[in-house]
């Protein structure tokens, strides 16, 4: 212990919110987390200075790695006493800077709260700690013949806590919805250090406000989620996957609208343009049709008869809307391979240019073709490279700028183009973020989407739940000095 305590002493006092933090305070924090649970060395902190978002880098004061709810609560209490901001972190795959540290903050990394606590096959629920990896939740459900549908592209490494805090979507959102639709209850450490249980295992519940919903998508600004109770579904008996190949992006977008208009809700309707397809193929080498201008990855699941019927009808529709070719996966394994390939899209795009800046705009589905056209046109106008893929069935596009953060002049054009895309989205009745959250990256855009009353309401909620502005301050919006 003595040897460990030396380290904090080397730190110079940090001024924060007018208070002065002296090193004995860090020693007290070390008492809470135990040896190995507190990081303060530069070499330990640098790896926590960013998340999956481009351009953001900030060292924290320290990183705490609590191993149970009591330690989390104690850490929050410590932070409140010492007036140190708390940035909660799961796996740091966020794409809006939600878990990027603030100067002088404490990062509360929940990666070690990683146990699945219970699967209840009678009530079809699963209880887990927040640091459990998303894919492990579905894998565990599968062992009981059950299904946890939300499957963000990052599911192999994102945490369930991060998913809840961002209300993450995934490839199956069209039919199965997003994380929110599966959260039945939460255990949350509040800003005052108390532990609250919100929601329960009942299918119906109207006792009071739906408080748990306030914390879903709250990006670590209202409380720290320390346990989740998730709803599971029976695992679908059959699944069919296909790739529809188009020679124009517009045709692909229209085919999507046609499928929806035909009253078919497939589980997946993903759009991938040529640049993205090429990058994914460079990585996976599974023989994707890289000559296509765009492809749609379509998947239907459920009762075998329904699956066969839907697949046939969708194949007919996409062909009628200009698909040059439709490739049907031979079996589930091949289908899973295609879905896995799609999940690599964002990272694979980093092959082209040093910096990848990904947007998350979402529009009502009937406006998709217009939005896709606008993105291409904006790229041309600013002489930029934008690759587009996304959860088209949800109206959710990920136009991704392939650029270089070290090229100032180009970055300026990128930010202009971004701004125009955001304005267009808002004018089409869309949202600046469908699933990645506001964080730091989209903070400026949020005001364009919200009217004054609703923007104020957002901040009133924050003030009510976190009056000291302790939790992830300055994310989503700034609070005016009270």
């Amino acid at each position, binding site marked *: 212990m003595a040897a460990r305590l030396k380290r904090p002493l080397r730190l110079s006092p940090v001024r924060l919110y007018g208070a002065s933090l002296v090193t004995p305070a860090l020693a007290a924090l070390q008492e809470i987390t135990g040896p190995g649970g507190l*990081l303060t*060395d*530069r*070499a*330990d902190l*640098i*790896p*926590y*200075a*960013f*998340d*999956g978002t*481009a351009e953001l880098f900030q060292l924290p004061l320290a990183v705490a*790695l609590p191993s149970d709810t009591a330690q989390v609560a104690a850490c929050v209490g410590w932070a409140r006493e010492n007036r140190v901001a708390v940035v909660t972190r799961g*796996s*740091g*795959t966020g794409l809006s800077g939600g878990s990027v540290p603030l100067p002088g903050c404490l990062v509360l*990394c929940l*990666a*070690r709260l*990683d146990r699945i606590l219970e699967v209840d096959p009678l009530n079809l629920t699963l209880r887990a700690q927040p*640091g459990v*990896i998303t894919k492990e939740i579905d894998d565990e459900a599968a062992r009981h013949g059950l299904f946890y549908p939300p499957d963000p592209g*990052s599911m*192999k*490494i994102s945490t369930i806590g991060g998913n809840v805090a961002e209300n993450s979507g995934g490839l199956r959102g069209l039919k199965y919805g997003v994380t929110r639709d599966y959260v039945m209850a939460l255990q949350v450490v509040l800003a005052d250090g108390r532990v609250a249980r919100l929601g329960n295992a009942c299918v119906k519940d109207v006792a009071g406000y739906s408080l748990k919903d306030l914390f879903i998508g709250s990006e670590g600004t209202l409380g720290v989620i320390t346990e989740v109770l998730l709803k599971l579904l029976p695992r679908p008996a059959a699944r069919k996957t296909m790739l529809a190949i188009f020679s124009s992006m517009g045709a692909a977008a229209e085919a999507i609208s046609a499928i929806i208009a035909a009253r078919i809700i497939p589980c997946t309707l993903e759009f991938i343009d040529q640049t993205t397809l090429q990058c*994914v193929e*460079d*990585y996976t080498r599974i023989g994707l049709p890289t000559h296509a201008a765009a492809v749609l990855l379509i998947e239907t699941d459920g009762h075998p008869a329904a699956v066969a019927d839907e697949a046939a009808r969708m194949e007919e529709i996409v062909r009628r809307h200009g698909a040059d070719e439709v490739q049907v996966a031979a079996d589930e394994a091949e289908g899973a391979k295609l879905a896995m390939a799609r999940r*690599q899209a*964002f*990272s*694979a*795009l*980093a*092959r082209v240019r*040093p*910096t*990848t800046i990904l947007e998350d705009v979402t529009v009502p589905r009937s406006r998709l073709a217009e939005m896709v056209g606008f993105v291409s046109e904006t790229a041309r106008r600013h002489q930029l490279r934008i690759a587009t893929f996304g959860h088209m069935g949800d109206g959710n596009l990920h136009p991704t700028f392939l650029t270089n953060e*070290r090229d100032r002049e180009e970055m300026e054009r990128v930010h202009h183009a971004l701004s125009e895309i955001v304005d267009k989205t808002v004018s089409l009745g869309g949202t600046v973020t469908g699933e990645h959250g506001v964080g730091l990256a989209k903070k400026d855009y949020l005001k364009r989407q919200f009217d004054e009353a609703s923007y104020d309401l957002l901040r009133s909620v924050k003030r009510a739940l976190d009056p000291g502005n302790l939790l992830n301050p300055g994310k989503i919006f700034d609070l005016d000095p009270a």
Partner: protein
Amino acid sequence: MAKASLRDLDYKVLQQCMHCGMCLPTCPTYITSKLERHSPRGRIALMRAVADGRFEAGTELAREMNHCLGCLACTTACPAGVDYGTMFETARAETEANHTSGGPMRRFYRWLVLEQIFLFPARLRLVGWLLRVYQRSGLAGWVRRLKLPYLLGRDLGDLEPQAPVMESPFSDGRIAPLETPPPGVPVRGRVGLLSGCIQSLAFGSVNRSTVDVLLANGWEVETPRLQSCCGSLHAHNGAPELARRAARALLERFDPSRLDAIITNAGGCGSHLKHYAALFPEGELAAPARAWDAKVKDIHEFLVATGFRKPVARAGETVRITYHESCHLSHGQGVRQPPREILRAIPGLQLVELPEADLCCGSAGIYNILQPGESQRLLERKTGRIGETSASLVATANPGCHLQLARGLRQRDAAVHVTQPVVLLAEAYQREQSA
């Protein structure tokens, strides 16, 4: 090949990582610690910080890079095509060059092993011979029983039981410089065999099996005597100059233009052997190194690509076998299916998949010696997984993994025998003869 320092490295290599985290769940040291600094993304961030001048290439960087196994699971997992291997070797070379890597004892062993033993085949053989005498004489048992290793100090004491058991005779005593296929097998061409350093001392029988399998498939086999180490040990341990010396010695022993392929049967060596051109980007060795790279083939890859003969089935019971991937065979060379195809082709074997087959066993060159704690954690995880398969045989295709698994299974008293795919294939051909 590694540049001398991270600052000289093409910035694009460092910037390629877009910190998505997709590599984290495959990184053994992240899995066991859940700490970002022990992850590929964290290590890259540290290296980039050095290049940016925000962090110093000192003892902390050295410690972290020595904690990395160099297993390259992260390169397999990375969709962005990050060249972790180059960064890793550069960082290790830099910290070795500025002496921030470990204390005097560690530096002494490193010097002894890398510079004084592995570069000289005759000395290596002498060490092998001494070890063999020691292990055979009964001395080893007494030394252990009397707890003498502890008198050597903790480091050396821990080392002693890890020394591979030396087989007799060594490789050169089992294989003639040129062997030709038996009568009745039409000759398809001629290949060279890299006998390896550890492989030739501790696994002469694996080399023998490799030759037998090649002969049975119509390949003449040339095996130059007293080959030196390929230099992979040096490259991975921050000694690029020594790696070049080792490579030069091997390039002189083989003439790729006369051979259809140069065969390696050790996964760890193969991934280095295939990249000699990177060691000699220019100069008189550049062209020979390129010609060499084009000819080096892993034995399993070669057998499957050229179409090997499937052994004829004989009546008998079926044995459950599982397969552990050597990191540098699967992540380093992308050879994943061929060893499995060979195992599936052998009558009497039922191949069951090993969960986490591609997770490092903790051997990783001399990592098990330098980082015994982490190595042991990974080994226990691996032997646990092997236990789950209820297989009675586990095959792997790298001497380091072979020794590590055998040691781990012994610790557990598990009745699982470790072997290699070529050995099983050679035995299957042999059984045909005796039928």
